[in-house]
């Protein structure tokens, strides 16, 4: 048994207690972590897996919850039914679930979490009557309800619009392995033969699942007493698990898809986590889900199918939020004793209980923010530099609106505090203000240490801080150059190096956005230093994008153009008197005001760029036009570059 103990995020090992639960002639292998007095979170694995797929998530949850995992019948340490045919029906799997739930949490409903076939089972558990009252919440990832899937297919076949047919064909192509698994004997032979041997390598190569056998990843687990690697995955039992598990498909797929239940409505709140890069399941499968689930919370995750291995931090945080929102507030000891942990039915609610319920309902509502990308950025940590004004502030607000936790960074302490305060008001669960000069490497290092220690690893980094500098090259002193390069270029370099390094070390992907400018590709006699710094940011971002692509870290560079922000009010104009500088500032500010392109639109472009992982994003029409010209007619741009701006 390789699941001896699992590493917790704090580095220590969390004790794993194993027990066996007998049900219907099957011996189920059940592992428990954490304090049994806490709410129970029950993790169900998929195919071809065993409960070890959850080791990283379980370790992260064990500090707060009573975490329970079991091997599905025929997998890992559980015995297989005899005969195999007919032994894996969803009805029997429901019996197993109830037996485990009764054994580990007899008095309180459990919080169910399923991945892949574990999620398919979870949907069955949460939609059949006999489990009613035993499930407090269900978190589903990468596994639809077969009944909902059946209806999904029927709907599209009865109204075969081009879009519906496209969706059907798309999912049909993604399900190629399902057809193969229905052939007799061959899958078993393959799994027990070459496929079983190659599987870990295939997972690593195509699914980017970090190998449990290769060199230790930073922050990974340590050797356990038995000599097994605690996070060894896939386990040695894989060939048998996969061979037995083929019956999951053979026993259920045809039966359910051809005759889906009409009453498959969920009786517990559901959190649906959809990996956007899933090679086996289309995102469209969940389009009609509101029909079946009254309390649905959607999340999307840019990842492939095996999220419990590739995104354990994110999953643990979303599961924690969802479970906490659907757990009663901690009651007083006396109340708990009186209730025996179960709310009495049919008893009039006291005001305290009523308030608690309302509170819980509100927390559940607040789980997903109102912003357009609430599903994607909810609970993520976003750091924005230059967040005291302009594009940075608007970006911080846009992320806050999408439910992200925001770290606002700027030199201007007052402005950045204001940004954090307003961010909290519009939906950021948490927001902090940090006063740092991005050009100061030491300060940035310190900031990174503080952020990592107190808030966590940054999921989205927006290097936005920048200063303006205008004037002829021959009038630009080296002091001027230093100032503009320190902020515009070195600020980005420090941010990418320090925070990007943390992202890469965590190994769960992320995104970096750098704000360049249309001046990065539009030369101008008025902005030599500024344009140079921004062109460097553009190229840096492109190179970094290539380097970090393999680690699922996207890099986008934004080229806004003329946007109405106070960069004009603080810009430096070289080669002119202080008075003339003031006049030019005022004049530029007025011109930018007349153009009046709002920074909010740039912020929207930034969020969109992160969601779609876009490489170079010109924002205003003039920025787009210049980008097009730079490719089609660079001489035109050079001609424009000679024009003296009317200041």
């Amino acid at each position, binding site marked *: 048994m390789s699941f001896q103990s699992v590493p917790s995020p704090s580095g220590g090992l969390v004790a794993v207690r194993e027990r066996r639960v007998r049900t219907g002639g099957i011996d189920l292998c059940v592992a428990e972590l954490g304090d049994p007095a806490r709410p129970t979170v029950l993790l169900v694995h998929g195919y071809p897996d065993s409960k070890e797929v959850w080791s990283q998530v379980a370790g992260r949850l064990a500090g707060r919850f009573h975490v329970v995992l079991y091997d599905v019948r025929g997998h890992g340490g559980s015995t297989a039914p005899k005969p195999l045919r007919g032994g894996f029906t969803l009805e029997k799997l429901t019996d197993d679930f109830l037996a485990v739930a009764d054994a580990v949490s007899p008095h309180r409903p459990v919080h169910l979490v399923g991945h892949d076939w574990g999620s398919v089972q979870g949907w069955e558990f949460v939609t059949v009557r006999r489990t009613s009252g035993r499930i407090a919440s269900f978190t589903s990832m990468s596994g639809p309800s077969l009944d909902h899937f059946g209806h999904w297919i029927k709907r599209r076949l009865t109204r075969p619009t081009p879009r519906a047919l496209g969706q059907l064909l798309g999912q049909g192509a993604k399900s190629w392995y399902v057809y193969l698994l229905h052939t007799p004997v061959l899958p078993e032979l393959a799994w027990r033969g070459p496929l079983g041997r190659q599987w870990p390598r295939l997972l690593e190569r195509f699914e980017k699942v970090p190998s449990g056998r290769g060199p230790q990843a930073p922050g990974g687990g340590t050797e356990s007493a038995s000599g097994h690697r605690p996070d060894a995955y896939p386990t040695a039992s894989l060939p048998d698990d996969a061979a037995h598990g083929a019956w999951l498909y053979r026993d259920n797929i045809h039966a359910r898809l051809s005759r889906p239940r009409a009453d498959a409505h969920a009786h517990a709140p559901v959190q649906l986590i959809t990996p956007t890069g899933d090679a086996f399941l289309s995102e469209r499968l969940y389009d009609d889900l509101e029909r079946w689930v009254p309390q649905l919370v959607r999340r999307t995750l840019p990842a492939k199918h095996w999220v419990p291995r590739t995104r354990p931090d994110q999953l643990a945080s979303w599961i924690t939020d969802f479970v906490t929102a659907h757990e009663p507030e901690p009651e007083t000891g006396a109340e708990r004793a009186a209730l025996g942990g179960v709310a009495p039915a049919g008893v009039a609610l006291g005001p305290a209980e009523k308030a608690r319920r309302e509170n819980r309902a509100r927390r559940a509502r607040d789980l997903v923010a109102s912003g357009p990308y609430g599903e994607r950025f909810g609970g993520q940590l976003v750091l924005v530099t230059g967040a005291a*004004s302009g594009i940075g*502030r608007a970006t911080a*607000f846009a992320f806050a*609106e999408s439910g992200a936790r925001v770290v606002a960074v700027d030199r201007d302490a007052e*402005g950045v505090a*204001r940004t954090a305060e*307003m961010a909290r*008001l*519009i939906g950021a669960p948490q927001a902090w203000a940090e006063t740092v000069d991005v050009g100061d490497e030491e300060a940035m290092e310190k900031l990174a240490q503080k952020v990592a220690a107190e808030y966590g690893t940054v999921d989205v980094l927006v290097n936005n801080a920048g200063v303006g500098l205008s004037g002829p090259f021959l009038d630009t002193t080296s002091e001027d150059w230093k100032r503009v390069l320190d902020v515009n270029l070195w600020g980005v370099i420090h941010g990418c190096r320090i925070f990007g390094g943390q992202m890469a070390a965590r190994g769960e992907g992320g995104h970096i956005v750098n704000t360049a400018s249309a001046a990065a590709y539009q030369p101008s006699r008025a902005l030599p230093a500024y344009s140079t710094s921004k062109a460097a940011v553009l190229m840096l971002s492109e190179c970094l994008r290539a380097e970090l692509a393999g680690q699922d870290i996207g890099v986008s560079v934004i080229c806004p153009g003329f946007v109405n922000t106070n960069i004009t009010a603080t810009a430096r104009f070289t080669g002119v008197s202080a008075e003339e500088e003031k006049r030019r500032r005022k004049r530029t500010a007025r011109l930018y005001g007349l153009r009046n392109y709002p920074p*909010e639109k740039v912020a929207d472009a930034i969020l969109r760029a992160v969601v779609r992982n876009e490489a170079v994003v010109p924002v205003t029409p003039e920025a787009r036009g210049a980008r097009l010209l730079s490719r089609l007619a660079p001489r035109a741009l050079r001609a424009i570059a000679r024009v003296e701006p009317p200041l």
Partner: protein
Amino acid sequence: MASAVTAEQATELRGFRSVQRLAYECAEAVAARLRPGVTEREAARMQRDWLRARGVRDWFHLPFAWFGDRTAFTGFRIPLQFFPTNRALAEGMPFILDMAPVHGGFTADVGYSGCLGANPLHDKLLADLRAHRELLLREVRERRSLREIYEDVDRLMVRQGYENRHRAYPFGVIAHKIDRVKDRRWSPRVLGFGTQALKGLASDALHGHRDGWSPLWSPYRFSDHPPRPGLWAVEPHLGFRGTGAKFEEILVVTDSRDPAESAFWLDDDLPHVRRWGKGA
């Protein structure tokens, strides 16, 4: 309004004050009757009926009501979008009631921001309007150019993180002059604006054009002049990601040399001012 406050003017100010109070009373009464499901049209109708029942026959403009993100004029492109729609109020939604009744020949133009239920963001916007009220009065007393004051208000909004939403009003005005209106038995309205009041505004605009001032306090060059004595309905309007808040009340500008008499708010006993008093 040619000199400092005289006895005659004091009577006149009393008239303006009473109609402004009436309008704010109307706003509070209607706000108290707003429930989830009430539409903007219904809210506008409620204001109109309430004021008609108390003798209002003419209007500077008919009552407006904006709910939800319409309080921040989200997506407004043409002036027709200001008119009340069938948008229904819901729990937690901000709203703005804006009306300009004429009563006994005196005009008021008020804006009342409220919220159905709790909305901390809206509370924050309302609290932040206080700085704007103070800034406006201070700079008018300093006799700064109206255009400059407009830009200072703009800058304060940007510092606070808000958008300037009075820019969406016709000519982007933060304020406009109001005056006495002759009581006529028949006073038709054009697009919601009373013709009598418009006539006054037009004649001011004509005279102002000759003398280098404008009855509209805008960000444009025609407002680049010191505050003109008279009554100004001032309406700074903050917007923040789909939530808007404003107040609108009368600022009295005189040509007195005494700073305190040169400009003052007509009435300091208004709902938003009382609110700040309580919060402080």
